[in-house]
């Protein structure tokens, strides 16, 4: 149960494209990694975060200092692998709680080849990202040359314009889960979290998962009662191919988009997306439903947003983020399509917005 402590003596550097440098200790693999540095304010749920495909090519800095306090479990995995480019914590635990044994955070990261960093002033990093925006960064536990690391960070590819959906190595085959489910759904897989699939399955759905390069008619051919556009990594504006297919689905079948799926629907409806300075990542963002005045506290993970002002007639903003007024949901009026920016499947985060799945099923029921 008590794992080895993080290699106390080996130091690691975090170098940012603006020249900032932070020194900490190695966590996970010894090596070097690059990506976009972002922060997440969740207190727990690190396994869900590590395995969420939307974090592809991002280095996550956890704002809450102690991490790795409880054990990793199979049900907390959001996908088959770990997708983050790097993981930064202030205080990595060397033991897990509730007598449940298993891997420590350090061991888990090593097993999944993640270069991480611990023992660093994460609040200083968060503040840097907050004031200067998400930046390209490098973590290295092998280099002693900060200047070179800063240069490498500057050379890393940018998030804006990045098509990362294509880079996700997922199963190209069409899968159906569970074979026995009742209501047939099609899911366009752009890096889906298991939580979304589970949320549908739990509601008696049979989900046919289509790879992201599928055509609209392939999806429609499966005679789905509804289509779900999944979450995923990267810049939605770099996915014109997918947007075209989504556009072809509108009006033909009820559509529900989540996160990247929301942005795709917005683009397909004729709107625009833009990059947020440092995004929303955490489990405490308040979202107001503009029609019911209800507030849900949501799970969030996105760096891009739908530009409300760009929405064409017939597409309305339905939900808004009470922190910064950014868009959290849209609906294509009369066309059976809506989407949310946050994660109603939670994992990690508050569960109350799961009600959105019910809304989708209701819409589907009416359609049928």
């Amino acid at each position, binding site marked *: 149960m008590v794992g080895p*402590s993080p290699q106390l003596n080996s130091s690691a550097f975090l170098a940012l494209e603006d020249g900032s440098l932070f020194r900490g200790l190695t966590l996970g693999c010894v090596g070097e990694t690059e990506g976009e540095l972002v922060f997440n304010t969740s207190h*727990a749920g690190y396994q869900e975060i590590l395995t969420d495909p939307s974090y592809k090519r991002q280095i996550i800095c956890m*704002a809450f200092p102690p991490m790795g306090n409880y054990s990793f479990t199979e049900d907390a995995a959001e996908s088959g692998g770990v997708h983050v480019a790097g993981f930064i914590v202030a205080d990595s635990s060397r033991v897990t709680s509730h*007598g449940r044994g298993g891997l420590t955070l350090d061991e888990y990261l090593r097993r999944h080849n993640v270069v991480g960093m611990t*023992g660093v002033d994460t609040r200083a990093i968060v503040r840097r990202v907050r004031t200067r925006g998400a930046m390209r960064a490098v973590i290295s536990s092998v280099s002693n040359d900060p200047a070179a690391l800063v240069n490498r960070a500057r050379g890393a590819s940018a998030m804006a314009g990045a098509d990362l959906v294509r880079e996700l190595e997922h199963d190209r085959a069409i899968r159906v889960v569970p074979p026995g489910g009742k209501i047939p759904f099609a899911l366009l897989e752009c890096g889906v979290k298991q939580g979304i699939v589970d949320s549908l399955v739990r509601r008696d759905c049979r989900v046919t998962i289509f790879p992201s390069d599928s055509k609209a008619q392939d999806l429609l051919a499966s005679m789905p009662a509804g289509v779900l556009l999944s979450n995923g990594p990267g810049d939605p504006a770099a996915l014109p191919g997918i947007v075209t297919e989504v556009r072809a689905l509108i009006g033909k079948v009820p559509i529900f988009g989540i996160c990247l799926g929301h942005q795709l629907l917005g683009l397909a409806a004729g709107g625009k997306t833009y990059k947020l300075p440092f995004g929303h990542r955490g489990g405490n963002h308040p979202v107001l439903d503009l029609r019911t005045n209800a*507030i849900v506290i949501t799970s969030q993970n996105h760096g891009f947003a739908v530009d409300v002002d760009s929405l064409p007639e017939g597409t309305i903003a339905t939900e808004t983020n009470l922190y910064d007024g950014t868009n959290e949901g849209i609906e294509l009026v009369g066309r059976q399509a809506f989407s949310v920016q946050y994660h109603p499947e939670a994992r990690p*985060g508050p569960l*109350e917005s799961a009600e959105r799945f019910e809304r989708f099923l209701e819409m589907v029921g009416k359609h049928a």
Partner: protein
Amino acid sequence: MPRRTDISSILLIGAGPIIIGQACEFDYSGTQAAKALKREGYRVILVNSNPATIMTDPEMADATYIEPLTVESVEKIIAIEKPDAIISTMGGQTALNLAKGLHEAGVLDRHGVKLIGAGFEAIRKGEDREAFRVVCSEAGVEVPRAVVARTIEDGLRISADLSYPVVLRPAFTLGGTGSGIARSEDELRSMLGIGLLASPVGEVLVEECLLGWLEYELEVMRDAADRCVVICVIENVDPMGVHTGDSVTVAPAMTLSDHLYQKMRDASFAIMRGVGVETGGSNVQFALQPGTGRIVAIEMNPRVSRSSALASKATGFPIAKIAALLAAGYLLDEIDNDITGRTKAAFEPALDYVVTKIPRFAFEKFKEADQTLTTSMKSVGEVMAIGRNFPESLQKALRGLEIGRNGLAADGKGLDAVTRVMVKKDGDDPVRREFTQEVLYKIKMPNCDRLFNIKYALMLGVAAEEIATLSGIDIWFICQIERLVDFEAVVAREGLDDTRLAEAKRLGYSDAQLDFLSGPDSAAGSTRNRRTAAGIERVYKCVDTCAGEFEAVTPYFYGTFGDETEAVPSGREAVMILGSGPNRIGQGIEFDCCCCHAAYALREDGYEVVMVNSNPETVSTDYDTSDKLFFEPVVVEDVLDIGKATNAVGAIVSIGGQTPLSIAHGIEAGGIRILGTSVASIDRAEDRELFATLVHKLGLKQPANATVRGIEDALRVAGKIGYPILVRPSYVLGGRAMQVAYSESELRLLAQEALDASDGRPLLIDQYLDQALEADVDALSDGRATAIAGVMEHVEPAGIHSGDSAGSFPAYTFSPDIVERMKDATRKFAKELEVCGLINVQFAVKGGEIYVIEVNPRASRTVPFLEKATGVKWAGAAARVMMGRTLADLKITDGDPRGYFYIKEVVLPFNRFENVDPVLSPEMKSTGEVMGIGLTFAEAYLKAQLAAGNRLPKRGGVLLTITDRDKEPAVALARDLSSLGFDLFGTPGTSKFMSGQGVPVGAIGKIHEGSSEIIDRILRGDISLVINTRDSRKAANDARRIDRAALNHSVPVYSTLRAASAMTEALKIYCRSGAGEPVRLQKIGGHSPTFQRSE
């Protein structure tokens, strides 16, 4: 939705005196609520019996009443003020129960007042254990197996199919009053008796015992549009079975996965909705079975609580303030988040630090008390600390706790030293093994030293898993302590180089601990100097509600070690006010009041006020009170660093009680200017030898005394002075370890005890002034002029600690000449000591002489009381004087009672400590105080008694058991009681004597004479008042049993003749015309009310 317009005036009910389980936190919540509602334009009416509160400052409300929190008194206030609504969720269990009482007595209906926030039904469903269970099962939340008992027999019968141990939980109580764990039928029987009495509705839940389950609390808020948010989740380090108030707790939860946490979160919303709390904050408690993840609901409080105060300080989210606004009809997204200034209150705070709360106990005051922690709360205060990891947070909290440690051991004190010797021995060494067993035993039983013992066990090589199993504390916490053990082992092997020094500071070690760890003759010099040289400086980070996601505009800081500091000097003239740390007996809310008043005054004068304190319950640690709040331990190291970080011109050390005063030397030596009375003057008052010279020089008298360093010395001196003799250590507060010796053999014993408590400092031997009267005088001086704030005459004679004795302002039996002489002496002290600020002098009066008992060149416990009684903000003025203002310029003259009598009465925690003799002595034991205001002494005393919760009877039996020397003077009061219609009973001697004087007093046998008739009669309810004047020289066993029986049955006891006489005078009013008319504070002294009700 804008604020409610159907109501325009709101009555806010306070929590009354500080008791175990209900402390300053309700002043914090009440003050926040009053301020918020007033700002919204409501007419606020406030009632609280506790004068030492900020909420009862006249400017906090439109109409303020310091009156008993009884249905009778509050109905009178309602009749006068005609409020539209009542908020009862800010004043703890007291206010909630009072609201329930008002509803049941029909008062609310009669006057058309509604309860807002939580209605009657919600209060009932939350507090009635059975109703709560129904709510939970309807909400789909599991509860432990349990049955509700209303009689003992009932309880035994219905709980037959639960297996022992079982937990008893009375309804409508607080702090686990009357609760406990029964391990057998016998225990269940006796505990049921106590529990049924403790519950105001006579209901006890007998429940399956979830020992070893983990305990969590969620602070939940709901608005009128049914939006729910969790403000904070608090995890108890001590598992179920130890009251949350007595547990070490952390926030947020450390060991919960997101999955388990979200389950609890959803359950807490379901419960809040089920209970029907319309708006406001609630606290929901859960138990979790480790391994299986089973979650059961334990209880919910439909009000703000101690935990919500903690949660507010831990997150920066002001729960009480928001709850008040929600009750007024606002919605969460209409209320600003003050900390960020740009977001709204509709969110859940994210933390990026670890908060630890540690309770503070007072077992040193209650030697016979069982120190095992259980479901009934025993702690008297708490400290909170913020760090970037658990070890840092924990060590900071321990440092702030003022238990003589600088962190988690590593100081060579107590068992730390022994353990360090033991670990050098062989693992098989029998001495080491025996010691290890002893330590493990102490880990098994929950107690306040458990975390220390866990560390010792780890040092001795016991496996973390074994300790986790033994204690029920989660392995995660044990391993966090193990980090310290491992670190110290490395330091012992390899020394403390600069890298390791930095690591040590990140783990929360204090400089003092590191001095110890690096060895006495460390070549590298003191840790502090080394740190400065190596640039390892403390940085300050903001508590910002959002883990850095938004910029914080409210400077609420904690110290840690890291790359970046967020506290930068503003360039304004900054003044540090040092707070009083955790509440303890002898130092509580009174000093926090003084600190707040000082802060308000200096802010008004344009200074930048920097508050330093570690007590989460307080108003001083509200981010609203100061310009910059540093939530830090009030110890030299941390204060010096804050001084640097703020560029403060100096520190005020003389209004926060003994805590800041005791570090005055240290911080002055570290380069911080002490504002106000000089350290040298403080020494002249505190050092007894210097003090004796001072008294002599001023031509005043003091009881014959001497300072001794050993037992033989003590005996010799006592022989010269003559017995009885008072023994006490120097430099302690609250009469700590002070005792009266009537003979040489007693002195021998007591002197040893005192020596142990005084940490190497000398002992004081005083002539004990038997049967003397006592007075407290408070004054304010600017170095030249002195204004007397007030002379308070004690009701109880000298020999009962000033903090435990009732007091009257103005004096009620002293001649004007005596009062003048005391004032005069006080002025002399002020002048001679060049006091700049407040001074408190205690006198004993005997045979027309005044004797000086002590001089405290600082704010005293009585200052807030006198502020209310005189209408002058003495502590605020003191702070101004320290910054150079004069009395003349502040227009301050002697305090004036303005036509009223003000009586202070105290409340004592004996009901928490079953084995303790409930007797008053020179050692202070009370936890809090109330005030009664009346046109006569008797009326004020009556109100004070009722406010203190003494259930005075209007008829029934009175038991008299009067010591010989009091018999003669007691005749008059016996006669009075008899003519008021009471049936008098007495122990044989008393009965015979009184009957001989023509007062009929029925005889009952004394207990030790084989009769327990007295006890039986108390149990039967025949006796509703006890006057038991004890002779402290005699074995007090029977007296003690009488007092205890009375206490357990809520029968008031008066143990001195003076108090009994005062009470008799009060009864004369009470029997005739009830509790007396409420007095509106704002009307005293012809002040015109600040708001005229327009009708």
